[in-house]
């Protein structure tokens, strides 16, 4: 029994990261219809940047995260304006290929600026809590809490604020939204900025709890899309449920079945969902 609970706890932390990545993806995909494949690499850039601020410029962790968030917001802004807006009215394939191209560019920039060895954001949090045989390191707990807070903040933003409602309006019916006076040129900028900010948070979590290295971003974004498909496009609760389910399933499978094919689970889940319930667990028909 202890083992099962331990595995679930193991899975929740990485599940939280998956949720954040999926949230960043679902906002862009659901509202703008763009498969922002570069999200993983950009999120890792955020993590790399935080690492750099802490170790290179001596910032405290919180200051480094704050500055990285601001950089992330600006970066999201630029990505929308320079890369995706020019192909907004062309076929969807073009946006996808732009996304692929962006991914390569960001991976290349990360490699160029931060090197090929892995980096870990130092946090000095090394206590471990032991509750009845189930161990949970302090850092993991904070990551889970932070993810939960971000999810709540995101939900509140989308439900309660004017901008959030405007975003939802654009998602439901773009033309009607224009008629109602919503500025459809600023909405994509806002959406991308939010998405990138969420990505930076995910990057910081991955960088402090695990490590950031070339290629990790791509792996995460594919899992992010798996969560998207599992949870249902455009659904925040779907992303949350999907991310946790994926993280916990991976941990349980690695623990009780086989660790060799752990990564395959995400793909099998994706394919299975598409075969039997393409709208996802919580998506609309």
């Amino acid at each position: 029994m202890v083992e099962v609970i331990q595995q679930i706890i193991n899975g929740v932390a990485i599940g939280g990261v998956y949720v954040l990545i999926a949230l960043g993806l679902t906002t862009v995909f659901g509202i703008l219809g763009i498969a922002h494949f570069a999200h993983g690499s950009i999120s890792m850039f955020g993590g790399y940047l935080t690492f750099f601020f802490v170790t290179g410029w001596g910032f405290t962790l919180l200051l480094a995260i704050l500055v990285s968030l601001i950089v992330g917001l600006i970066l999201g802004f630029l990505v929308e304006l320079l890369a995706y807006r020019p192909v907004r009215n062309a076929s969807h394939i073009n946006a996808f290929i732009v996304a692929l191209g962006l991914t390569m560019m960001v991976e290349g920039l990360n490699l160029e600026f931060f090197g090929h060895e892995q980096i870990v954001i130092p946090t000095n949090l090394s206590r471990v809590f032991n509750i009845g045989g189930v161990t949970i390191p302090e850092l993991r707990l904070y990551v889970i809490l932070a993810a939960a807070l971000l999810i709540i903040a995101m939900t509140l933003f989308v439900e309660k604020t004017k901008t959030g409602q405007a975003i939802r309006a654009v998602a439901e019916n773009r033309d009607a939204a224009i008629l109602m006076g919503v500025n459809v040129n600023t909405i994509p900028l806002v959406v991308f900025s939010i998405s990138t900010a969420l990505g930076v948070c995910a990057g910081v979590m991955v960088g402090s709890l695990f490590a950031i290295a070339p290629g990790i971003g791509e792996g995460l974004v594919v899992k992010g899309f798996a969560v998207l498909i599992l949870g249902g496009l455009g659904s925040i609760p779907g992303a949350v449920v999907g991310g946790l389910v994926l993280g916990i399933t991976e941990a349980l499978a690695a623990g009780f079945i086989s660790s060799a094919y752990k990564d395959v689970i995400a793909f099998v889940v994706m394919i299975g969902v598409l075969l039997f319930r393409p709208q996802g667990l919580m998506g609309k028909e």
Partner: protein
Amino acid sequence: MTLNRTFVFYALALVGFILLPQLIAVKYYLHLSILALIWVIAAQGQNLIQGYTGYVSIVQAGFMGIGAYSTALMGIHFNMPVWLSITLAPFVTAFFALLTGYPSLRVKGHYFAIVTLAFNMVIFIVLMNFHQLTQGEAGITGIPKPGGREGLLNWRDRETYYYFVLIIAVLTTILAALIVRSRVGQTLVAIRQNEGLVGAIGIAAWKYKLFAFVISAMFGGLAGAVYAHYQSFINPEIFGVAQSLDAILAVIVGGSGTISGPVIGAFFVVFLPEYLRFADSFRLILYGLVLVLATIFMPRGIVGVTSDLVSKWQSRKK
């Protein structure tokens, strides 16, 4: 008149390719040309599903891997002669393409691309982990050439292999052209332009999409098989997602939805890294930048730009 001009153009190109080995001084570039021709086969396949049908698939390298491993393993386990295993490899690939295509084609656009990418990763992981069959990361060595040093042709000579691959590349290009010009091809283009309308007319679009997907995979499998017998060594490393992205790049840069586009794109993808002998990070950045800029400014690729220039020049003559 236009038909003749196109024909002349292709004939000249063909002559150019035939003469290529004689014109190359340094053997190394012949090696690259062989690789480029192999990529032509793969790119023609990619073009069928991406350029003509409008479904960007990210799994061509995975199918190349299936083709390569099929031919290698059939040779080892069944003692099959090379010509037979190369011929059968695309059909083995077709089988897997059916398995993967069926669920993938239930969704469109981005979803489709992501699912195919997932399949590519599954193929890669299986190739890496299924040691008993594939020998994992160590790969399979000693894959034989289609013939020995004796016999009619000297297979040890790189030139022989070049002509062998050239013939296959030409045949597959002709096959692609035939498909595209047929009723099937027109339906595929219609699907790309307006899939809903195609369905509304009563055509079962999914059959055509599956056909395009499977044929494109078979081209990939053939390319992989030819590669295996050229290099004599294969391992999962080169059949991953990064190489599938190369296939997409080849189609986009060369000219999506044209027959000569993939040929140009394939040579671009193989030769460009040679001229970018910077650190890997620059190559990645440059590649990415090319993709982004090409999609924004040159969505019809080199072929598109060229034909635009040609028609401008023609209209100026009038």
